[in-house]
Protein backbone atom coordinates (compact mmCIF):
# COMPACT_ATOMS: atom_id res chain seq x y z
CA UNK A 1 0.00 0.00 0.00
CA UNK A 2 2.80 2.33 0.99
CA UNK A 3 4.74 1.33 -2.13
CA UNK A 4 1.74 2.19 -4.34
CA UNK A 5 1.52 5.60 -2.72
CA UNK A 6 5.25 6.13 -3.24
CA UNK A 7 4.93 5.21 -6.89
CA UNK A 8 1.96 7.54 -7.35
CA UNK A 9 3.90 10.36 -5.69
CA UNK A 10 6.83 9.79 -8.02
CA UNK A 11 4.54 9.73 -11.06
CA UNK A 12 2.90 13.00 -9.99
CA UNK A 13 6.27 14.55 -9.30
CA UNK A 14 7.46 13.53 -12.79
CA UNK A 15 4.35 14.89 -14.48
CA UNK A 16 4.62 18.17 -12.55
CA UNK A 17 8.19 18.73 -13.72
CA UNK A 18 6.88 20.46 -16.88
CA UNK A 19 5.82 23.40 -14.72
CA UNK A 20 9.41 24.05 -13.70
CA UNK A 21 10.94 24.01 -17.20
CA UNK A 22 12.68 27.32 -17.75
CA UNK A 23 12.65 29.26 -21.00
CA UNK A 24 15.85 28.92 -23.03
CA UNK A 25 17.07 31.85 -25.09
CA UNK A 26 18.03 31.15 -28.67
CA UNK A 27 21.68 31.73 -29.58
CA UNK A 28 22.40 35.44 -30.30
CA UNK A 29 23.99 34.40 -33.61
CA UNK A 30 20.96 32.43 -34.78
CA UNK A 31 19.34 35.27 -36.74
CA UNK A 32 22.51 36.26 -38.61
CA UNK A 33 23.49 32.67 -39.34
CA UNK A 34 20.03 31.92 -40.71
CA UNK A 35 19.91 35.08 -42.83
CA UNK A 36 23.34 34.23 -44.19
CA UNK A 37 22.18 30.72 -45.05
CA UNK A 38 19.06 32.03 -46.79
CA UNK A 39 20.59 34.85 -48.79
CA UNK A 40 24.13 33.66 -49.56
CA UNK A 41 22.71 30.72 -51.46
CA UNK A 42 20.25 32.99 -53.24
CA UNK A 43 22.89 35.57 -54.24
CA UNK A 44 25.24 32.86 -55.47
CA UNK A 45 22.47 31.44 -57.64
CA UNK A 46 21.53 34.88 -58.93
CA UNK A 47 25.03 36.05 -59.86
CA UNK A 48 25.77 32.88 -61.79
CA UNK A 49 22.72 32.91 -64.08
CA UNK A 50 21.37 36.44 -63.67
CA UNK A 51 22.80 37.62 -67.03
CA UNK A 52 20.99 34.83 -68.90
CA UNK A 53 17.52 36.43 -69.03
CA UNK A 54 14.51 34.60 -70.57
CA UNK A 55 14.68 36.86 -73.70
CA UNK A 56 18.32 35.97 -74.15
CA UNK A 57 17.49 32.30 -73.66
CA UNK A 58 14.86 32.48 -76.43
CA UNK A 59 17.24 34.33 -78.79
CA UNK A 60 19.96 31.75 -78.13
CA UNK A 61 17.53 28.92 -78.83
CA UNK A 62 16.41 30.51 -82.17
CA UNK A 63 20.08 30.99 -83.18
CA UNK A 64 20.96 27.39 -82.39
CA UNK A 65 17.97 26.05 -84.34
CA UNK A 66 18.73 28.30 -87.38
CA UNK A 67 22.41 27.32 -87.45
CA UNK A 68 21.47 23.63 -87.19
CA UNK A 69 18.90 23.82 -90.03
CA UNK A 70 21.36 25.68 -92.29
CA UNK A 71 24.18 23.21 -91.54
CA UNK A 72 21.99 20.16 -92.19
CA UNK A 73 20.81 21.49 -95.59
CA UNK A 74 24.40 22.35 -96.59
CA UNK A 75 25.74 18.97 -95.56
CA UNK A 76 22.96 17.15 -97.43
CA UNK A 77 23.67 18.93 -100.75
CA UNK A 78 27.45 18.97 -100.78
CA UNK A 79 28.04 15.56 -99.27
CA UNK A 80 25.65 13.85 -101.67
CA UNK A 81 27.18 15.43 -104.78
CA UNK A 82 30.80 14.94 -103.76
CA UNK A 83 30.24 11.36 -102.67
CA UNK A 84 28.54 10.45 -105.98
CA UNK A 85 31.39 11.92 -108.04
CA UNK A 86 34.05 10.25 -105.84
CA UNK A 87 32.26 6.92 -106.23
CA UNK A 88 32.06 7.35 -110.01
CA UNK A 89 35.72 8.22 -110.42
CA UNK A 90 36.87 5.43 -108.06
CA UNK A 91 35.06 2.77 -110.11
CA UNK A 92 35.87 4.29 -113.49
CA UNK A 93 32.30 5.28 -114.23
CA UNK A 94 33.11 8.90 -114.84
CA UNK A 95 31.96 9.56 -118.47
CA UNK A 96 34.33 12.49 -119.10
CA UNK A 97 37.48 10.41 -118.56
CA UNK A 98 36.29 7.11 -120.00
CA UNK A 99 38.18 5.86 -123.07
CA UNK A 100 36.34 3.61 -125.49
CA UNK A 101 36.92 2.56 -129.08
CA UNK A 102 34.04 4.82 -130.10
CA UNK A 103 35.69 7.90 -128.60
CA UNK A 104 38.89 7.44 -130.45
Amino acid sequence: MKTDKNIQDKVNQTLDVVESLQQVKVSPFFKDQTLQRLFDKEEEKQTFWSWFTPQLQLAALVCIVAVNVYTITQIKNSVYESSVSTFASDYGLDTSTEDTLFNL
Partner: protein
Amino acid sequence: MTETQFIEALKTQSRAAFAKLLHDYEQKVFGTCLSFVPNKEDAEDIAQEVFVEVFNSINKFKGDSKLSTWIYRITTNKCLELIRKRKTKKRFAFLQSLSGDDYTLDKASYFTEINHPGLILEQKEISETLFLAINKLPETQRLVFTLSKIDDKSYKEISEITNKSIGSIESLLFRAKKNLQNILEEFYKSQM
Protein backbone atom coordinates in the same frame (compact mmCIF):
# COMPACT_ATOMS: atom_id res chain seq x y z
CA MET B 1 2.40 46.97 -41.88
CA THR B 2 -0.55 44.53 -42.00
CA GLU B 3 -0.02 40.77 -42.09
CA THR B 4 -1.05 40.66 -45.78
CA GLN B 5 1.53 43.33 -46.66
CA PHE B 6 4.16 41.51 -44.63
CA ILE B 7 3.40 38.22 -46.44
CA GLU B 8 3.66 40.02 -49.79
CA ALA B 9 7.07 41.38 -48.74
CA LEU B 10 8.14 37.85 -47.76
CA LYS B 11 7.00 36.59 -51.16
CA THR B 12 9.40 39.01 -52.85
CA GLN B 13 12.10 37.34 -50.73
CA SER B 14 13.30 40.67 -49.41
CA ARG B 15 16.11 40.46 -46.89
CA ALA B 16 14.48 43.09 -44.65
CA ALA B 17 11.22 41.12 -44.50
CA PHE B 18 13.03 37.91 -43.53
CA ALA B 19 15.09 39.79 -40.95
CA LYS B 20 11.81 40.95 -39.36
CA LEU B 21 10.35 37.43 -39.57
CA LEU B 22 13.41 36.05 -37.80
CA HIS B 23 13.26 38.78 -35.19
CA ASP B 24 9.59 38.01 -34.48
CA TYR B 25 9.72 34.22 -34.62
CA GLU B 26 13.22 32.93 -33.85
CA GLN B 27 12.52 32.56 -30.11
CA LYS B 28 9.05 31.05 -30.60
CA VAL B 29 10.17 28.54 -33.24
CA PHE B 30 13.26 27.58 -31.25
CA GLY B 31 11.14 27.16 -28.10
CA THR B 32 8.75 24.81 -29.87
CA CYS B 33 11.66 22.83 -31.35
CA LEU B 34 13.24 22.49 -27.90
CA SER B 35 9.94 21.23 -26.49
CA PHE B 36 9.96 18.34 -28.96
CA VAL B 37 13.70 17.77 -29.15
CA PRO B 38 15.35 18.46 -25.77
CA ASN B 39 18.77 19.17 -27.20
CA LYS B 40 19.88 22.78 -27.83
CA GLU B 41 22.00 22.07 -30.92
CA ASP B 42 19.39 19.83 -32.56
CA ALA B 43 16.65 22.35 -31.77
CA GLU B 44 18.63 25.18 -33.39
CA ASP B 45 19.30 23.07 -36.48
CA ILE B 46 15.59 22.28 -36.85
CA ALA B 47 14.65 25.93 -36.26
CA GLN B 48 17.01 26.93 -39.05
CA GLU B 49 15.46 24.29 -41.33
CA VAL B 50 12.04 25.78 -40.53
CA PHE B 51 13.09 29.23 -41.78
CA VAL B 52 14.68 27.72 -44.90
CA GLU B 53 11.37 25.93 -45.58
CA VAL B 54 9.42 29.18 -45.03
CA PHE B 55 11.78 30.93 -47.46
CA ASN B 56 11.36 28.23 -50.10
CA SER B 57 7.60 27.74 -49.70
CA ILE B 58 6.28 31.23 -48.91
CA ASN B 59 4.94 31.54 -52.47
CA LYS B 60 2.78 28.45 -51.87
CA PHE B 61 1.24 30.02 -48.73
CA LYS B 62 -2.35 30.86 -49.69
CA GLY B 63 -3.29 32.68 -46.50
CA ASP B 64 -5.90 30.10 -45.41
CA SER B 65 -4.49 30.34 -41.90
CA LYS B 66 -2.50 32.90 -39.92
CA LEU B 67 1.19 33.14 -40.81
CA SER B 68 2.13 32.07 -37.27
CA THR B 69 -0.06 28.93 -37.52
CA TRP B 70 1.56 28.02 -40.82
CA ILE B 71 5.05 28.49 -39.34
CA TYR B 72 4.18 26.38 -36.26
CA ARG B 73 2.79 23.68 -38.56
CA ILE B 74 6.11 23.58 -40.43
CA THR B 75 7.94 23.53 -37.09
CA THR B 76 6.00 20.59 -35.64
CA ASN B 77 6.31 18.66 -38.91
CA LYS B 78 10.08 19.20 -38.99
CA CYS B 79 10.42 18.07 -35.36
CA LEU B 80 8.31 14.95 -35.84
CA GLU B 81 10.20 14.19 -39.06
CA LEU B 82 13.54 14.26 -37.21
CA ILE B 83 12.19 12.12 -34.36
CA ARG B 84 10.80 9.55 -36.85
CA LYS B 85 14.09 9.46 -38.76
CA ARG B 86 16.22 9.03 -35.63
CA LYS B 87 13.82 6.43 -34.18
CA THR B 88 14.11 4.18 -37.23
CA LYS B 89 17.88 4.38 -36.90
CA LYS B 90 17.61 3.02 -33.38
CA ARG B 91 15.67 0.06 -34.72
CA PHE B 92 16.50 -2.36 -31.97
CA ALA B 93 15.04 -0.14 -29.29
CA PHE B 94 12.05 0.49 -31.50
CA LEU B 95 11.37 -3.23 -31.95
CA GLN B 96 11.69 -3.70 -28.21
CA SER B 97 9.06 -1.05 -27.58
CA LEU B 98 6.73 -2.77 -30.07
CA SER B 99 6.73 -5.93 -27.99
CA GLY B 100 4.60 -3.99 -25.48
CA ASP B 101 6.23 -5.22 -22.28
CA ASP B 102 9.12 -2.83 -22.39
CA TYR B 103 8.95 -0.45 -19.45
CA THR B 104 12.54 0.63 -19.56
CA LEU B 105 13.01 4.31 -20.16
CA ASP B 106 16.44 3.87 -21.57
CA LYS B 107 18.49 6.92 -22.56
CA ALA B 108 20.47 4.85 -25.07
CA SER B 109 17.36 4.19 -27.15
CA TYR B 110 16.28 7.86 -27.07
CA PHE B 111 16.60 9.72 -30.38
CA THR B 112 18.95 12.41 -29.02
CA GLU B 113 21.23 13.21 -26.12
CA ILE B 114 19.09 15.10 -23.61
CA ASN B 115 20.67 18.52 -23.27
CA HIS B 116 17.88 20.95 -22.37
CA PRO B 117 19.35 24.05 -20.72
CA GLY B 118 15.96 24.85 -19.18
CA LEU B 119 15.96 21.81 -16.90
CA ILE B 120 16.55 22.62 -13.24
CA LEU B 121 19.64 20.77 -12.07
CA GLU B 122 18.00 19.12 -9.03
CA GLN B 123 15.20 17.84 -11.24
CA LYS B 124 17.40 16.83 -14.16
CA GLU B 125 16.94 13.10 -13.73
CA ILE B 126 13.20 13.28 -13.20
CA SER B 127 12.80 15.62 -16.21
CA GLU B 128 14.77 13.22 -18.37
CA THR B 129 12.44 10.42 -17.24
CA LEU B 130 9.48 12.50 -18.39
CA PHE B 131 11.02 13.12 -21.85
CA LEU B 132 11.78 9.39 -22.18
CA ALA B 133 8.18 8.59 -21.22
CA ILE B 134 6.77 11.09 -23.74
CA ASN B 135 8.86 9.32 -26.37
CA LYS B 136 6.76 6.18 -25.77
CA LEU B 137 3.48 7.94 -26.66
CA PRO B 138 1.80 7.57 -30.05
CA GLU B 139 2.70 10.47 -32.36
CA THR B 140 -0.62 12.41 -32.18
CA GLN B 141 -0.72 12.19 -28.37
CA ARG B 142 2.91 13.25 -28.18
CA LEU B 143 2.19 16.21 -30.47
CA VAL B 144 -0.76 17.48 -28.43
CA PHE B 145 0.86 16.84 -25.03
CA THR B 146 4.10 18.57 -26.03
CA LEU B 147 2.37 21.62 -27.52
CA SER B 148 0.04 21.96 -24.55
CA LYS B 149 2.15 21.08 -21.53
CA ILE B 150 5.72 21.84 -22.57
CA ASP B 151 5.31 24.57 -25.18
CA ASP B 152 2.38 26.07 -23.26
CA LYS B 153 0.12 26.61 -26.26
CA SER B 154 -3.63 27.13 -25.81
CA TYR B 155 -6.17 24.55 -27.02
CA LYS B 156 -7.25 27.01 -29.73
CA GLU B 157 -3.68 27.37 -31.03
CA ILE B 158 -3.14 23.59 -30.96
CA SER B 159 -6.42 23.06 -32.76
CA GLU B 160 -5.33 25.47 -35.53
CA ILE B 161 -1.85 23.96 -35.83
CA THR B 162 -3.05 20.35 -35.94
CA ASN B 163 -6.27 21.01 -37.89
CA LYS B 164 -8.26 19.14 -35.24
CA SER B 165 -11.29 20.25 -33.23
CA ILE B 166 -10.84 21.43 -29.64
CA GLY B 167 -12.86 18.39 -28.54
CA SER B 168 -10.39 15.98 -30.12
CA ILE B 169 -7.46 17.94 -28.64
CA GLU B 170 -8.99 17.49 -25.17
CA SER B 171 -9.55 13.81 -25.79
CA LEU B 172 -5.98 13.29 -27.10
CA LEU B 173 -4.56 15.16 -24.13
CA PHE B 174 -6.60 13.05 -21.72
CA ARG B 175 -5.35 9.82 -23.34
CA ALA B 176 -1.77 11.12 -23.42
CA LYS B 177 -1.86 11.86 -19.67
CA LYS B 178 -3.39 8.46 -18.94
CA ASN B 179 -0.77 6.68 -21.03
CA LEU B 180 2.03 8.66 -19.42
CA GLN B 181 0.67 7.76 -16.01
CA ASN B 182 0.75 4.04 -16.95
CA ILE B 183 4.22 4.23 -18.51
CA LEU B 184 5.64 6.01 -15.46
CA GLU B 185 3.88 3.69 -13.00
CA GLU B 186 5.30 0.61 -14.72
CA PHE B 187 8.72 2.22 -14.92
CA TYR B 188 8.83 3.07 -11.20
CA LYS B 189 7.48 -0.38 -10.31
CA SER B 190 10.30 -1.97 -12.31
CA GLN B 191 12.78 0.22 -10.41
CA MET B 192 11.61 -1.07 -7.00
